[in-house]
């Protein structure tokens, strides 16, 4: 693991721990402010990170945790709380995948998941309600996913 990857991982873990503490406290204006700062920091970290897929994963996870916390205090209930806790635990256990060294290394499950989430959300939105908006969003996410998939094939099989 490179120094850059280690530093990135440490920063990511520190942020996950900070968010876990926030989730255990009642809501307050100060907490909301801190959550906004965490989100901004995650965005900055995303911009500075070394791997595009991990950038997206970190950013999406941070957004999911903020959404989960808001839902919790709006009466989301125990299911949302446990989902948020699972996301935090998952993030705490996450480690960078080794850099590819052969022509076709496997894509890690976390990267696959990170790429799949926006498309799956758009698909579910379309299934819930077939409108011009959900259809456009679905087409957009499908095009993104396709481009990422093809780039990934190119990187692994014919760099």
């Amino acid at each position, binding site marked *: 693991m490179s120094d850059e990857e280690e530093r990135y991982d440490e920063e990511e873990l520190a942020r996950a721990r900070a968010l876990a503490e926030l989730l255990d406290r009642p809501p307050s204006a100060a907490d909301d402010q801190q959550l906004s700062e965490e989100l901004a920091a995650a965005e900055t970290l995303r911009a500075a990170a070394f791997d595009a897929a991990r950038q997206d994963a970190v950013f999406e996870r941070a957004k999911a945790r903020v959404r989960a916390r808001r839902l919790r205090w709006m009466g989301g209930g125990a299911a949302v709380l446990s989902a948020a806790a699972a996301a935090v635990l998952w993030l705490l256990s996450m480690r960078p995948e080794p850099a590819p060294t052969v022509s*076709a290394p496997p894509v890690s499950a976390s990267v696959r998941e990170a790429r799949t989430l926006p498309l799956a959300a758009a698909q579910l939105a379309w299934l819930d309600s077939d409108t011009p908006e959900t259809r456009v969003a679905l087409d957009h996410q499908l095009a993104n996913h396709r481009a990422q998939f093809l780039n990934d094939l190119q990187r692994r099989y014919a760099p």
Partner: protein
Amino acid sequence: MMRRFMLWGLLLLASCASERSGGEQIAQADRAALSGWIARVRESHAQADRRRDAAALQALTDTATAGAPSGVDATDAVQARQDLYVHAASLALEIGQVARAAELTRAGLALPPYPGPFRAQLLIVSSRAKSALGDAAGAATDRQAARAMLAEH
């Protein structure tokens, strides 16, 4: 005696050199085939993005049915083909070839059922095609299957 050893040594070196050269040629051939396949998949999608017509539909269908070269992981190959069928079926729907769209989604869903987002999308396009053909029950079944797959993953 010395001369015989030298002869054996030369033969051994020549043999090693020949094997190495053959291996490199195979690796290069594999790499060329993989690059060619990825380029063809990309171009089929790009052509369909540029021109929403029957020729682009045929290119997508041909690439989907041609399959992937050896050396491509089975899961990658299935996903690439699923996506080609998704794009082809969507295009067929768009240009009014509804029956063809249903046929293409059936072909995509007949591939090994790797439960990724492209398979879910095949079910979604299939439901749209069936709905356009008046098969409301079939469309509902596909939507339910897509929803179940997305919920699981």
